[in-house]
């Protein structure tokens, strides 16, 4: 087996106890809060009798001792059954599976925006070190970094949807119209622009700063001096020689921040009505829908662990010395 493959398999095996531990911790934490889903459901019917609430509790199995509920939960997890959402009245797995593509699409688009734009601006700023472009970019990065995401999202909607009328203000696709797959993909793409920009811009700011610093450091290294001595153009030196080496810290940070981006998607999905996991978890939390909440948290933790694994592999591709060590 190649070292890369061994590495991947080892990491996948390690994933099982990590995920189970996360599940147990979540279960314990969520059961610390007073009140339960039976109360919430009873309340949503606008007042109800004690018998009604008790009946709900009994049929949901909430009247059993906590340890029993815990073993039922873990036992189900081992056969990939995430349980039943009493609020949404549907299996948790189905609910999560419905939402996960939307969130992954949004996250992927945001990361691409963040890394690509952040990298380019960072390179640009470093190559024009202490020039006016560097100054403008630094100030812009600072402003974007300090802007709350939901506000940025709303302002983008006001500009592009209300004032200019060029992009849709929310949702993932045009509802209630038939279209071919190509037109549908373009339609989703149009809907994706504003949310992925909103989610990505914050990280653009971060990566611009990081890339700039990293580039400036690489510029002091000997091989750059060698390249200059060979008479290569500054553009080629910056984009080809320095960038690849300066990229490592950005990729590292991007990997670490996957969980963070997933958290940020709650706000962005709320503002844009994007049907993803972030909103599902938020609604579940408000309604004390514990099976759903546990399910989403579990799947999110799996996603984060997997993406981190992918980043590590990518890291190896960028710098083969890392895996071989």
């Amino acid at each position, binding site marked *: 087996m190649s070292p890369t493959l061994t590495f991947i398999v080892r990491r996948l095996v390690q994933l099982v106890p990590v995920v189970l531990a996360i599940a147990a911790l979540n279960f314990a934490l969520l059961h610390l*809060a*007073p*009140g*339960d*889903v039976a*109360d*919430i*459901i*009873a*309340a*949503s*019917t*606008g*007042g*109800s*009798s*004690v018998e*009604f*609430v*008790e*009946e*709900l509790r009994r*049929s*949901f199995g909430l009247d059993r001792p906590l340890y029993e509920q815990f073993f039922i939960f873990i036992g189900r997890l081992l056969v990939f059954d995430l349980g*039943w959402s*009493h*609020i*949404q*009245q*549907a299996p948790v797995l189905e*609910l999560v599976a*419905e*939402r996960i593509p939307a969130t992954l699409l949004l996250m992927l688009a945001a990361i691409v925006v963040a890394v690509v734009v952040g990298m380019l601006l960072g390179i640009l700023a470093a190559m024009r070190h202490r020039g006016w472009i560097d100054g403008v970019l630094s100030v812009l990065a600072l402003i974007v970094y300090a802007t709350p995401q*939901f506000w940025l999202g*709303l302002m983008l*909607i*006001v500009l592009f*949807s*209300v004032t200019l*009328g060029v992009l*849709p*203000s*929310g*949702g*993932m696709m045009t*509802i*209630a119209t038939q279209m071919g797959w190509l037109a549908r993909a373009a339609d989703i793409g149009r809907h994706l622009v504003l949310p992925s920009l909103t989610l990505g811009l914050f990280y653009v700011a971060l990566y611009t700063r990081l890339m700039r610093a990293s580039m400036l450091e690489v510029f002091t290294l000997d091989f750059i001096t060698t390249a200059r001595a060979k008479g290569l153009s500054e553009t080629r030196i910056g984009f080809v020689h320095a960038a690849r080496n300066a990229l490592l810290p950005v990729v590292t940070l991007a990997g670490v921040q996957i969980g963070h981006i997933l958290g940020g998607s709650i706000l962005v*999905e*709320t*503002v*844009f*009505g994007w*049907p993803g996991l972030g*909103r*599902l978890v*938020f*609604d579940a939390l*408000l*309604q*004390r829908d514990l099976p759903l909440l546990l399910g989403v948290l579990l799947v999110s933790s799996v996603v984060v662990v997997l993406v981190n694994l992918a980043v590590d592999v990518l890291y190896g591709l960028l710098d083969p010395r890392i895996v071989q060590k």
Partner: protein
Amino acid sequence: MTINSLTKAILAAASAMALAGTAAAQCPKTGGTLTYLYHPEPTALSTVATSAVPVAIVATKIYESLLTFEGAGMTPRPGLAESWTVSDDQKTYTFKLRQSVKWHDGKPFSADDVKYSIEKVIRPFMSRGRVYFGDVEAIDTPDANTVVFRLKAPVPYFLSVFQPGETPILPKHILETIDTSAAGPIRQSSLMRQPVGTGPFKLKEWTRGSHVILERNPDYWRKGYPCLDQLVLRVLPDGAARAIAMESGEADVAPMSALPEAEIERIAKLPHIQATKEGAEALGPNMWLEVNLREKPLADVKVRQAISMALDRSRIVDVIWYGQGTPATGPIVSGNPNFYNKALKPYVYDQRAANRLLDEAGYKRGADGVRFRLSQHFLPYGETWVRLGEYIRQELGKVGIAVDTKSVDLAGWLKAIYTDWDFNLTSTFSHNYSDPTIGVQRTFISSSINKGATFTNSMGYRNARVDELFAKAARETDKTARKAQFDEIQQIMHDELPVIFLVELSYTSVWNKRVHGLITNGISMYSSWDGVWKD
């Protein structure tokens, strides 16, 4: 001809004309898609398991009940029942059902469906089912198109029970395939997610987290209806984003305060937008400060009156709710034309009088200016309620009542208020519904002092006279006597303040002017919208 018979003749002629009008009526324009906005997303497409607003708005387009209603006072009109008669002792209600009505899956609708839905689902498992049908001795179905309800005692509000959102008629042939012995299996049944109703619209597509699409039912019994081809619910969780979608014309309707209070005023002024508080009279949301009467000082009526005078209702309406409401006077809202006691006046904002009352009650200010301390929870429904909590703390502080505000989430709040009774003050609101026996009684009668039951008598309020009046009114067949009973209840509560009545909230519905026919009765957003059309 006596005057009486003349009136009858005129009424008969008028109703004949109305019927003829109905027969000849047709949509001014057919076709089109109506998009409306809401958040949160409905959790089911049937009001059996929950009567939450987002569920009721969509489910009432799919499922129907025996009757429909007209006007703010909710006059019963034919629905699935073509006509009905009430026996002289008001204990037998006979409904003649419409023939040739079909379920969305093509199966014929019959009296068995009515009997089965009420006996197996609505009465045992709908939260108000026992109130509605507790006095039903038997439901007979002499033939496929007749349903007879035999009651143990007269139920004066019995006809208003058959609202589409409250008593939806469900298909027996599908219910039979599920376990109807407990709430769980019914809640989990496919009927909640893949509804089969008789209504003007049927489910086409539900993409969770995004939208629900309903399409025209081509076999709808009301020929030529519905006017619209499609009804689309778009779930937009952010209030500002919903306002923008209305502003840009992307959505047609924002029903029942779907827009945040802070935005309604601005949006309502736009030239293409119409906004109204009408069409929600039969829900009647009433907001109050719930008090725990079990211990001093709140057990003292003077203290409650003082609190009532220390709060400025107009300011709460104007500043906190951006004008979306009116000061409340008692348990029944002024928008209910049949039962509101017009003699009542809201408590006047007068902090000097409040201070005097507190002095009289024996709660002198201490050296720090504080008379006593109270804890306060606020309803965890968002920003507005937090601001209300802050306002109350500020105003009560001025009269020497120190208030500690506690912030908890909904499940924690429900437990603290209704299961543990561990609170002094909390803000909350309740719906009146079209009849006080249904919507008001449960909060104030002493038999609803039950630990663990949500939105009931958490105050621990006991008044034998009030109990007696509510019990009488629940059976009273004489309309004038019944009104007098409710008038007295309102007077007692106005004086005794089992809770501090604050604001009759209003539900403002906002729509694009290209939409017509939305407001037809006291609960218009829960109507079937079969006559709604779009330019």
